[in-house]
């Protein structure tokens, strides 16, 4: 039988073990990234031996035509697919959360979940076969269409979480005060769900920029985006310029995360129960 004092002593010891374990996990998360960033400043053509500090690899990026072209492609694909997916996904989320059972609602709900559950490779295969079957030439268009197809679901999931927390009486109050449907949406609903919509859009942007598998299936000549270009070069070997590009991609991801966290911090004030 244990006494209270024994209990608090074992708790404290357990706590210390857990803290040590967690420190190791954080080390596991960050050490590889730190090494990558460190070697991007390395003045050597070989990626793994430190020869002194340089910014040459970063200077080489703008001169690399293929790389710059892929960045341009990535931005076009990410922005266009995110814009469409955010609108469609938000509408889907509102329809599922705010309206009573309409015909086919459950089927739609399932269809909306599938692209999230299905493995990348399967979705890539599906879309390649589809575009070939309808004789659509592979290129920027097919990449954008594919990215919208998987991003609608992710946006809808994020926005739904926000809509389900919303107090419906606010919208009712607006219509009691004779606001038109569109006006009560624009003035009441939209501002309230905006953090969810922006969060969903940021997720869509990230997923679009990161995707390799689906994009490599549906891309055509001249339409290669950054992630696929980097993937092809990584397969050829470890080079310092890839380290530099990777570091910049990492910085971009971190800025996106911090942005989405800031948006989330602003929410909560208008939701039911915080």
């Amino acid at each position, binding site marked *: 039988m244990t006494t209270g004092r024994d209990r608090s002593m074992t708790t404290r010891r357990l706590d210390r073990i857990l803290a040590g374990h967690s420190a190791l996990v954080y080390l596991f*998360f960050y050490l590889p990234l730190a090494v*990558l960033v460190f070697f991007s400043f390395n003045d050597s053509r070989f990626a793994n031996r430190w020869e002194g500090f340089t910014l040459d690899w970063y200077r080489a990026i703008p001169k690399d035509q293929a790389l710059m072209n892929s960045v341009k492609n990535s931005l076009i694909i990410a922005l266009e697919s995110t814009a469409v997916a955010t609108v469609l996904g938000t509408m889907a989320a509102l329809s*599922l959360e705010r309206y009573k059972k309409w015909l086919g609602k459950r089927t739609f709900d399932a269809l909306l979940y599938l692209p999230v559950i299905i493995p990348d*490779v399967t979705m890539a295969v599906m879309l390649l076969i589809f575009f070939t079957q309808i004789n659509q030439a592979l290129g920027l268009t097919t990449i954008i269409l594919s990215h*919208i197809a998987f991003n609608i679901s992710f946006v809808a999931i994020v926005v739904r979480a926000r809509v389900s927390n919303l107090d419906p009486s606010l919208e009712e109050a607006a219509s009691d005060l004779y606001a038109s449907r569109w006006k009560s949406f624009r003035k009441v609903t939209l501002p309230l769900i905006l953090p969810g919509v922006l969060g969903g859009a940021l997720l869509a942007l990230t997923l679009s920029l990161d995707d390799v598998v689906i994009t490599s299936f549906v891309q055509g000549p001249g339409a290669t985006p950054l992630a696929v270009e980097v993937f092809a070069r990584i397969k050829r070997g470890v080079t310092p310029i890839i380290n530099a590009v990777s570091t910049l991609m990492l910085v971009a991801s971190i800025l996106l995360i911090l942005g989405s966290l800031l948006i989330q911090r602003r929410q909560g004030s208008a939701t039911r129960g915080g």
Partner: protein
Amino acid sequence: MKRRLPDPVEAVEVTPDLERRAERAERWRGFRLAVPAYVYLIVLFAVPLVLVGVYSFASRSRTGQPLLHDWNLDSVKRLADSAFLQIAWRSILLALLTTIICLVVAYPFSYYIATRSERTRNVLLVFVMIPFWSNFLVRTYAWKVLLGADGIFTRIGEALGLWGQLLFTMPAVLIGLIYGFLPFMVLPLYASIERLDWSLVEAARDLYATGPKAFRRVTLPLSRPGIIAGSILVFIPSLGAYVTPDILGGAKTTLLGNYIVNQFLAARNWPLGSSISMAIMIVMLLATVLYFRSGGRTL
């Protein structure tokens, strides 16, 4: 005598008919709002999905062109080939191993974060979100740098006399998968442990349950939804992984994902690639349905 207050909406009599019509209009509006996404997903998801199913039964011309008339079960039968079964078995084992290691590493880690004060918790969580959201390709590449012939990890292993160059071997793929998917295990686990009703654990302790026993009988069952959600989120992408084995693995580490990609981009056997994709998808849908049946709500 009680005075009856006048009913403010007496002017408009609410008949059942009017109510029904309003409800129908409401449903119609809900449907209309979903139409764009609905149509989009039918055309660019449901139809392609059916097409993959159809292709599984198609045959293939000598040039690798899929033929959509000579229907047969050849590609489906090839799923029973020993060469394919070996790859499937290897992928399943590797995905299971990844899931188990992630669970064992992530549980105490998530438990630690979830039991901190709110302020510390939020800071610790941000540092989990960063790897979670960071570019997967870049994170995998980082391990290629570490595990190569000249890599730091390799040099440490050689200095200790424990391991040599791991790049292009199975352990390298395993490390890459764990590194890639660990955050997917941490977040759902954290969410379910953080929601836990601690008074139940205290009650168990007050009833003289030992620490380990209270954990096994109370904490662990209560965090089950997180365990299941995390396991699915790690197992599914590990089983279909393509990027990680392609970068960190070698010729002897072909997994299901690479095998499918090869059928499409190199071997040009679309019917075989389709039937394997369908098989993987069915396995994963079953896993997900089981998850929802077992009481899970969200992924």
